[in-house]
Every structure is written in C-alpha cells, then in structure tokens.
C-alpha cells in the first residue's frame, strides 16, 4: 500500500530541494522530512499525527520506510527521475502531481512544517542544517546508543530535552502558528552553536 502522505511529502521536499540545490538525494528527503516532523511537534501537533515514523539508520541519520517506498514508487511511475549518481529530480508529471496534491486541505497543514524545514537551507548553509539536525536531542541520544529505537517514540528520554528547547523557543519568539521558519532557523542555529561549544570544551 502506497502512503499518500509519504508521496506528498517526498514530492514537496524534493521540489523545494531541487529549487535550491538543483537535485536531491533520498538521504536529504529523509533528513528534511524528519525536520518537518519535529517542527510540526513544535507547532503543537502530536508526533503520532505526522503519519509515518522514523528510526535511526546505520549511518546515524533519520530514516522512514514510508518515505523510502514513496520515493521508489514515484521513480517507477516516472514522477521522479534518478541520474547515474543516484540524485533525483521531479519530472513534469511530478510537478503536476505536486500542484494537484498541494491544494488538498489535509496537506495544507503539512505544508507549514515542510516549508519551514526546507526554507532553512535558504537562510543557513546546508552543512550547518545537516549537522544541526544530527545534534538535535533525539538524534543525538539515538546516536549515543546502539539500539534501533523509534525516533518518534515520545516516551523516549530525549524528548524532555527537546520539549525544554521548544518551550524556550516559544517563550523567546511568541506562539504564532502560521510561520514556523523563524523558530526553525533559530533552533537550528542554536543547535549549531551548541555543537561548537561542546567541541570547544
């Protein structure tokens, strides 16, 4: 069964990355899908409502089976094309499909989080974004442990640290639900800064 949510998120994130970087990899779609999921949590939605879960892959990055299958299905259908180096692009039919699905009411709420996640690479260097996500509390905790715990398990110990960080952000920035770009960028910068400090120490 193909997940309609996974298809939409893959198309949306893929198109945004393509706009900025020219093409995208499966790893990048997974990374920004994961960041979107966390931003949706910041916006007050339970993580279980996101529609699919993430685990930590062997390389220490977030991985969703649903996103993986969706990318595969889009490639087979011809809505995405892959070059020899493994990098992907949306085809014309992919763009049409994305336009159609973007107008569905259920997808509008997702767009707020997906867009904020993808916009971060317009405002911060790509490398900083990538490193920051690996240092956010849940990934950071998962990378220090060997078991394959679900990253979206809200009972996990790292979630309380994440909630504290979000609480601080909300207090500092106010609680507007419409624009998530500012909190996303401030948070990623904070994580980057934190990483530098810990390295310096």
């Amino acid at each position, binding site marked *: 069964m193909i997940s309609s949510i996974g*298809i939409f998120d893959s198309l949306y994130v893929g198109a945004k990355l393509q706009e900025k970087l020219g093409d995208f990899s499966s790893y990048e779609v997974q990374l920004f899908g994961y960041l979107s999921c966390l931003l949706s949590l910041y916006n007050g939605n339970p993580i279980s409502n996101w529609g699919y879960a993430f685990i930590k892959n062997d390389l220490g990055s977030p991985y969703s089976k649903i996103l993986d299958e969706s990318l595969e299905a889009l490639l*087979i259908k011809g809505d995405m094309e892959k070059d020899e180096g493994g990098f992907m692009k949306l085809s014309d039919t992919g763009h049409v499909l994305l336009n159609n699905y973007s107008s*569905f009411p*259920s997808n509008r709420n997702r767009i707020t989080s997906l867009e904020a996640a993808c916009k971060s690479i317009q405002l911060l260097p790509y490398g900083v974004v990538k490193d920051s996500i690996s240092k956010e509390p849940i990934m950071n905790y998962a990378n220090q442990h060997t078991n394959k715990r679900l990253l979206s398990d809200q009972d996990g110990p790292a979630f309380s640290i994440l909630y504290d960080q979000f609480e601080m952000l909300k207090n500092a920035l106010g609680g507007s639900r419409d624009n998530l770009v500012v909190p996303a960028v401030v948070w990623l910068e904070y994580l980057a800064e934190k990483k530098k400090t810990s390295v310096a120490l």
Partner: protein
Amino acid sequence: MKNYYFPIIRKLVINDFTLYKKVNQVSIDLPNGVFCLVGANGLGKSTFINILNFALTGIVKRPDSDFSQFGSIPQFYTKSKSFAPIYFDRRIDENYRSVANVTVEFSVRNTIYTVTRNFFSIDAIESLSIIRENQNLVEANTVTEGDLDSFYKKTLAENIGLGDFEQFVFLQFFVFTFDETHQLLFWDNSLMERVLYLFFNLDPSKAKIADQLRKEITATESSMRNLQWDATQKGKELASLLSQIEDSGNSNAGIQEEDVKQYQELSGRLNDTLDMIQNVESELKECDLLLADYRLRMSTLKSEYDLLFNSSFNRDAALEKDPAIIDLLFKIRHNVCDGVDPTPLFSEIIKIIWETKCIKNSNLDSEEQLARLRSIDEDIFSKTSEHDKIQKRKDRLTEDYKQYRNKANEIKSLMDEIEQANENFVLSLYKNTATTDLSVLVTSMRSHIDRILQIKQEESKKRDLKREELKILERELNQKYVEAEEKFMPIFVDYARNFLGLDVNVNIQTYAKGATLILEVNDSLRKEKYQLSESQRYFIDIALRMALIEYSSEKAVILIDTPEGSLDIAYESKAGKMFADFTKKDYNLLMTANINSSMLLIQLATQCGSGHMKLEKMTDWTFLSEVQQQEQAYMQEAFQRIEEILEG
C-alpha cells in the same frame, strides 16, 4: 410623568457568533421606528434578542424560570448571571469561545455608551466608553479594566434615573422585552407589583425597599414555618421520650438548630452540584458518541481514500518501469535464451496492461479520480476539524466534571462531619440518661419547644411590622397610581381598545401578598388567564408595556420576539396598527418575524413606510435547512411584498 430616560439602541456588532454561519461579523444600525429581523424558525431570531439583552445587561434570562422563583429583583439578577455561558455554549463554536463578542452602542439622554462583552465572561466588560459632552467618562474617571463593569452599572442606573442596575435589568427583561417565554405582567402578581412600584411610585428607592420588605416577609414566613416544623418534631420526640420513659426505655434528643440549617443548606448545594454533574456526564456521553461516530466515518473515508489513491497510482505507473512487467520481460529473455517458448508469458503481459494501464478499465479518468480524491480529502479534513472541536469540548467538560466532583466531595464531607457530630451528641445523650434523672431531660426538651414557639412568635411580630411598613408603601403606591391614572389610563385604553375592539379598563388592587393591576374587559373582570384567548392575553400585555413606557419616558426601545406566531388572523392587522401607533410617537420597536403573509407585517409596513421601518433578512447571516430551502421561493416572495409596501 416622564421620569425615566431609557437606552435608545443605535448599533449592534456581533463578532464570530458561529451560529450565524455565513458571516464573521453581523453589524446592524438600528434606525428610529421599526427594525424587523425576518427569517424562518430556528435561524437564531430569538438568539439575536438574547444577544442584544446580554450586551446591555450581561445576562441571559433562563427560559424555564418564572420571576416568582427568584423572589426579588436582586436575586433574579444574581441567579441569572451564570446562565449566559450555558446559553451561548452550543451557539458559538468551541474554537471561537475566547474571541466571540458583542458590542452595543446606545444613548441615554446626552450620553453615548459603547459596551463590548465576551459571551462567556460573567460580571466583566471587555471594553467600555461612555461619552458625555465630548468627554469619555471612563477615561476621565481613570476606571481600571477590572472596574469597567461596576462603573458601567452605576453610571447607567443613575443616567436612566433608576435606583440601581438590577432594576434596569429587571425592566429590560420583563417590560422592554416580550420574548418567547411569554411571561406576562397581567396574571403574575409578583412581576406586576415590582413593575407598579417602579413606574408609579416615582422614587425607585421605594421600589427597592418594597422589594426588600417583600423578600424579608417571605423569608420570615419561611422561618416561621421551619420553626413550627421544628417544634412539632421536638414535640414528637418528647412524646416518644415520655413513652420510652414509661417503658423504661431510652430517650431521644434533638439536633442543634444551627446544624440542621447548615445541613439543609449543604444538602441543597449538594443537590445543585449533583445536578450539574449529571448534566456534564450526559454531555460527556454525547461527546463520546459523537467522537466515536466521527472516528468511524473518518476511518471509512481514509480507507476509501487510500484505495482510490493506490489504484490511481498503480494505474499511472509508467509501462516500462512497472516492476511486474519488468519481471515478466526478464522471464521472457530467460526463456528465449534457454530456447523455451516464451509466448505463454505474452498473455500475462497483456493481462497486466489490460488491468492496470488501460483507462477504459477504470470507472474514472485521472481528472475525475483527482476530483474524487480531493472531495474525500475535503470531507476527511472537515470531519477532522469537527472531531477536534468535540474533543476540545470534551476536554473542557472533563475539567468541569472534576471540579464539580471535588466540590460535591467537599460538601459531602462537611455533611458527614455534621452527621458524625450529631450522632455523638445523641449517643452521649443516651449515655447520660442512663445514669441521671430522665425528668431533667424532659424538662429541658419542653423548655426547648417553648423557646422555639417563642421565637416563632417573635418572627410573627417582625413579619407583621414589615407588613405594616409595606402597607404604608402600598398605600403610597395606590395614591400615586390614582394620581397617574388620569394620564396613564387613556394611553393604555387607547392601545388595548384599538387592538381588542372592546372596552378595556384596569384597576389597582391590593391583596394580602401585594398590589397588582386587574384587567376588565367590557366591565367584566379577567383575573384568570383562561378568561382571554392566548393572542388577546399577549397583545393586551404588550399594550400595557407600551403604555407604561409611554407614560414614563420620552423615548425607548421595545423588543418583541415573533409576535405574529401567537396571533389569531382576526387580530393581525390590528396588532400591526398598534405597533405602528407606538413607533409614530417616537418610540422604537425592534422585532423579529417569521416572514410570511401575516397582515401584521403588511399593516406595519403600510403604516410606517421605508423611512420608518427597516427589514433585515437572516438568510444574509446564516443558511436555511433543507426544508426551509424548499420554501425559499415562497419566503422570498413574501419578503418582496413587504419591501414593495415599504417602498410605497
């Protein structure tokens, strides 16, 4: 004698009142003359009247309670306060509770008031301005946000010329509003007496004193009844004790009076709280049912969506990239290379292409499929937001439920303490009587009974004194009424006779429990309701209200909710003329009507014309039900007819 200056409502703005589905804001300028809100049943016409009164007073009248149940004007006001949030609860969407509000602009003499209230705040005003001679009194008096409500009440009552704000609230609901509860002044002595004091005794403080005296007399009489009951109980206990002494048995003892009172009071509170708990429980059950229903429907829709999404996705997969076809191609190559006949595999490829790649095989083409997907998605989205709203409501109710339960537990433990204490008391009494002379106990009980009867006697004297005081006021009221009769009576008789076509008269009558006006039609007393038809009763009562208003003030607004509903056809035209006569004397009428061919509206429109009457359609604010939509053409026709009459 024009001694009052009642509010003239100029404008009403209602924000985010989601019962009115079409608009986020309803803004109404109220003209001089007649403002008529027309619409079918169930669209919120009565709600509109309640919103306006809420904006003015901060309360909504409980539809199921008579004035006599409250006992006094202050009690009516105080006990009605908590009803507004309950009334507006389902009329305003859960998500809009904090933002929905109403602003009313009105003038009293040379002062313009603008009051904004949130529908769920009790004793609070969101914003207030009181402009007199280009000065905002709120700012001039540096009134803080928390004091806006009390400043408004005080200023308005003084401005109108009443003793206090509660009297204004009383008049607004029982004289200036003829609503769907149809509480009539005639045939309700407790209402009529208050009205007479306020309109004919000139000094509003006297009305307040009379109201207080009436309340105290009622309280004293109730206390006398309690004391008598207590004395009787004690007498029974004594008799039982004497009989037990005779049988060498045990004796009994009474419970401390204060404890009994406190216990009764707690028991009353407990019952109220348990009622609230029961209400919340039933609402919670309803929420659970709705939530389950929405979840089921959402899940069905989701399955339908997934199925459709997947079928379209598979069908659209490019032929050369379809894994099933690629797999078959590999098999064919393998067969060809191994010299095996590959043709049986061709039919499998044809089958896959036929089943998954041919548009003909699908009931829907891709455009249609997309539209169908979108429509299901919209349905899921709308159901999700409904579901979330109910969930939010359930969360709030669960919180209320916890609070009520805690309250009930607190009350119950206080009651337990009293029970415990009295049980000990009784037990100790029994222990004493076992060793001491029981005649001491009998004497003590006898003297206790005597004391109770003595207190009852004192209460009776107090009541008589208060009755005397009240009688003085009643005499004064009688005199004032007789003085006023010369001016008041012709006004009332005019309205009533024009409507009924019969000779009408009213007389003041003082009876044991107070004063009232008695109606006479063709020289025959109509003390009982059944002596007039329903429409005669309603419109005579409206005539009385109009006469009281005309007698006491230069200008005022009367609110009448769907008057034509209860009207005999024979009286429709006359009622329309009665309203028109009232508004021609510079008074305003705000009414609601269920648009139809009623002669009341036609007559009113004929008499008033467009310069003096404004129609507002509720269909501009909200949607009609399916049945109403079927009748829309008919209603539109009726509406146009009235508009044409207005335009002359």
